C-alpha cells in the first residue's frame, strides 16, 4: 500500500499541503463567523479560472491562478458592497455571489468546451477537483503559495488575533483593520486557489472549516487551535489521498472531506471538556447525585416527623413510597449510599448513619434557608417557594450557604415554621460574627 506510484506521491503531497494551509486559514474564517465566505470565494473563482484559460489558451497554472485570485477578490467585494448598500443581509449576499459567479463560470466553461481548441479537456476538473491530474509543477506552486500564506499568518499572528477577536479595539490601537480584513480575504482566496485542482470549488469550504471546527473542540488557545487545525487538515488530506489512490474511481476531494468530517464528529463527541459525551455523562452524574441527596433528605424528614429520632430503620416499602420508586430504582440510589457508609440497608429497612444524617441536614438546611430568603427578601408567597428550593438545595455552594445564613441573621425556623437544622453538623450561629 505504501509502495506508491510517482503520481500517487504527488497527489499525497498536494493534498497534505492543502489540508495544512486550509486548516490554518480556516480557523480565522470560522472564528470570524465567515465560514461560508470561503464557500462563496471558491465558487466565485470559477469564472476567473475559465477566463484565465480563455485569454491565454493554456492550462499553465499561473494565469489560471491569477484569474481565480482576481475573481475571488471581486466576489468578496461584491458581497461587501451588497451588504453595505442594501437591505439584504450577509447570507443572501453570499448566496447571490456564490450562485451567480458559479453560473457565469459554467457558461464560460461550457462555451470553452465547445471551442475547437483541443486542450481544454480537464478544465472541468476544477469543479470537483481531480488530484490525479496534479503534476509536480502544480505541487511546487502549491507549496510556494502555501508556504507564503503560512509565513504571513505567522508574521501577522498578533494582528490577525485582534482582527478576529475585537476589531474595534484594534482600530483604536491604530492598526488598519479594513486593510487587515482585505489581507485575510486575499489569503483565503489564495488557499481556495491552491485547493482548486485537488478538491474543486464545490468542496473547498470543508477543507477550510471542518478541520478548524474540529480543532476548536480540543483547545481554548488560538495558537494551538491554528496548529491543530493545520495538523487535522494535513492528516485528512493525506489519508483521503491514500484511500482514493488505493480504491479505484474514488474522487480525492470528497474522500478528504469525509475523513475531515469523521474527525470533526469524533472531536464533537469525545474532546475533553467540550465533548458532548462528557457533557452528557456530567449531566447524568448530576442527576444521580440529586437522586441520592433527595433520598437522604426524605429519610431525614421522616425521622424529623417521627419526633426527631433517626435510629429506627424505615421499611423498604415505605422508602419506595416516598417518591414512587420501584425497588430497582431505589436499589440503584441506595446501594451507592450504603457503600459510602451514609446509610445502612438491612432486611428491616433503611437507617441513616451519622455521616448521612449530617449530609441530609445540610441539604434540608439549604432548602429551608432558601425558602426563607425567597419569602423574606424577595417577598414571594410562602406556598410558591418550595419548588424553587427543591432545585437550589442541590446547587448552593457551602460559601453561598454561609453568606445566606449570615444575611438572614442565622434563623432557626423556615417560613413554614419548621426548624432549620444545625444541631449535629454544628453550623454555629456565632461563626462569622466573632
Amino acid at each position, binding site marked *: 500500500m505504501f509502495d506508491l506510484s510517482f503520481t500517487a506521491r504527488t497527489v499525497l503531497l498536494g493534498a497534505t499541503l492543502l489540508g495544512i494551509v486550509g486548516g490554518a486559514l480556516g480557523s480565522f474564517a470560522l472564528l470570524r463567523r465567515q465560514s461560508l465566505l470561503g464557500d462563496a470565494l471558491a465558487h466565485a473563482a470559477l469564472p476567473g479560472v475559465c477566463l484565465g484559460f480563455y485569454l491565454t489558451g493554456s492550462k499553465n497554472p499561473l494565469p489560471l491562478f491569477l484569474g481565480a485570485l482576481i475573481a475571488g477578490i471581486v466576489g468578496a467585494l461584491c458581497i461587501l458592497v451588497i451588504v453595505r448598500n442594501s437591505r439584504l443581509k450577509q447570507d443572501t449576499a453570499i448566496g447571490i455571489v456564490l450562485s451567480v459567479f458559479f453560473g457565469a463560470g459554467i457558461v464560460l466553461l461550457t462555451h470553452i468546451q465547445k471551442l475547437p481548441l483541443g486542450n481544454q479537456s480537464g478544465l472541468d476538473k476544477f469543479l470537483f477537483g481531480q488530484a490525479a491530474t496534479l503534476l509536480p509543477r502544480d505541487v511546487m506552486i502549491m507549496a510556494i503559495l502555501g508556504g507564503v500564506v503560512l509565513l504571513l499568518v505567522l508574521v501577522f*499572528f498578533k*494582528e490577525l488575533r485582534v482582527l478576529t477577536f*475585537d476589531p*474595534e479595539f484594534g482600530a*483604536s490601537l491604530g492598526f488598519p483593520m479594513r486593510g487587515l480584513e482585505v489581507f485575510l480575504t486575499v489569503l483565503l482566496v489564495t488557499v481556495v486557489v491552491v485547493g482548486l485542482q485537488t478538491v474543486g470549488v464545490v468542496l473547498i469550504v470543508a477543507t477550510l472549516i471542518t478541520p478548524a471546527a474540529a480543532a476548536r473542540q480540543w*483547545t*481554548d488557545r488560538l495558537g494551538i487551535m491554528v496548529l491543530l487545525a493545520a495538523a487535522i487538515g494535513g492528516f485528512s488530506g493525506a489519508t483521503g489521498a491514500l484511500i482514493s489512490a488505493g480504491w479505484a474511481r474514488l474522487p480525492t476531494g470528497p474522500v478528504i472531506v469525509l475523513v475531515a468530517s469523521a474527525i470533526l464528529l469524533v472531536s464533537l463527541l469525545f474532546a475533553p471538556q467540550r465533548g458532548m459525551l462528557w457533557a452528557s455523562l456530567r449531566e447524568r452524574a448530576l442527576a444521580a447525585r440529586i437522586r441520592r441527596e433527595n433520598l437522604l433528605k426524605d429519610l431525614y424528614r421522616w425521622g424529623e416527623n417521627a419526633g426527631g429520632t433517626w435510629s429506627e430503620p424505615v421499611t423498604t416499602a415505605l422508602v419506595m413510597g416516598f417518591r414512587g420508586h420501584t425497588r430497582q430504582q431505589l436499589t440503584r440510589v441506595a446501594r451507592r449510599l450504603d457503600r459510602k457508609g451514609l446509610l445502612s440497608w438491612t432486611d428491616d429497612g433503611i437507617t441513616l448513619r451519622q455521616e448521612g444524617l449530617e449530609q441530609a441536614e445540610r441539604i434540608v438546611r439549604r432548602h429551608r434557608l432558601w425558602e426563607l430568603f425567597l419569602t423574606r427578601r424577595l417577598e414571594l408567597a410562602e406556598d410558591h417557594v418550595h419548588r424553587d428550593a427543591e432545585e437550589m438545595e442541590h446547587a448552593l455552594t457551602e460559601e453561598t450557604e454561609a453568606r445566606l445564613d449570615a444575611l438572614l441573621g442565622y434563623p432557626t425556623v423556615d417560613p413554614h415554621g419548621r426548624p432549620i437544622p444545625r444541631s449535629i453538623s454544628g453550623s454555629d450561629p456565632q461563626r462569622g460574627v466573632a
Partner: protein
Amino acid sequence: MTKDGVSEDPRGGDGTVAGGLPDSAKPAIEVHDLTVAYRTQPVLWDIDLSLPEGKLIAIVGPNGAGKSTLLRSILGLVKPVTGWVEVFGAPYRQRRSWVGYVPQRESVDWDFPTSALDVVTMGLYGSLGWLRRPGRKEREIAVSCLDKVGIADLAGRQISQLSGGQQQRVFLARALAQDARLYLMDEPFAGVDATTERAILALLQELRSTGRTVVAVHHDLQTVREYFDHVVLLNMRLVADGPVATTFTNENLQRTYGGRLTVLTQAAEALLGGENPEISNPNV
C-alpha cells in the same frame, strides 16, 4: 484594592496627585463643532465640548442619544461630517498611546479561544507595533494588570468561563495595560454584580488619584452623583456639561430625556427621593 495598584506616573509626564488639576490646565478632550451622521440620520449634532483632565466624567443620555458614537468619534473610528476632536491638544492619531479604550462587553464573542491573560496582553499590542510579538515582559505587565482588577488567579482561564463581572474586569485590565492618561469606557458598569461594581469604582477613583482622566458612558442615573465628578448630558445635541453638582440637575435631566417618563421617574428618585411634584405629574 491596594493603593500601589496604579502608582507610576502616566506616560507623558504631567499627571498630578490627588485632587485633580488646576483649572488652567489643558483639557483632556476638546470636541469642536462635531456633527456625525450615519447614512441619512444625524447622530450627533453640533457638539462643542471641553473635558477637564484628572476627573471621572460620565456621558449620560437616553438610548440612541449618540453616547457611544461620541466615544467612537473621539477614537477616530467614525468620520464626522463637520468638526474635529483633539485629545490633549492634538489629533487622536498622535495621541493614541495616551488613550485606553474599554468597548462594550457585548461587542465581542466571549466563546473565543483565548485566555484572560491573552486578552489583557492585547492592550500592549499598540506599543509593540507591527511584527514584534509579546514576550515575557508583556506577560508580566498583563499579569500585574489582572492583579490590579483582582483576578490575577484567573489569568489562564478561558474567557467564556468567566462571569460577566470578571469579563468586564478583563476588559478593564486590558485598558490598564495600555497605561494611558485618558480612558474611554463604554458602559463599564453594565450588567456586573455588586462586588465588581464596587471594585470598578475603586479602580476608577485610583486612576483619578494618579491624575488620569476617565470618560465613561453610563446608564444608571442613580449612581452618577456618587461615582462621577463631571457629567455630559447628551441627546444628539449637547444638553449640558459641567461638574455634577451644578449640571446634573432635574431641569437638565428633563431636557435630556424629554418625555420619557420611566427614566424620568428614576431620575427624580435619584435626585429627590421621588418627591418631585413637577416630574411625577405625567402631563408631558
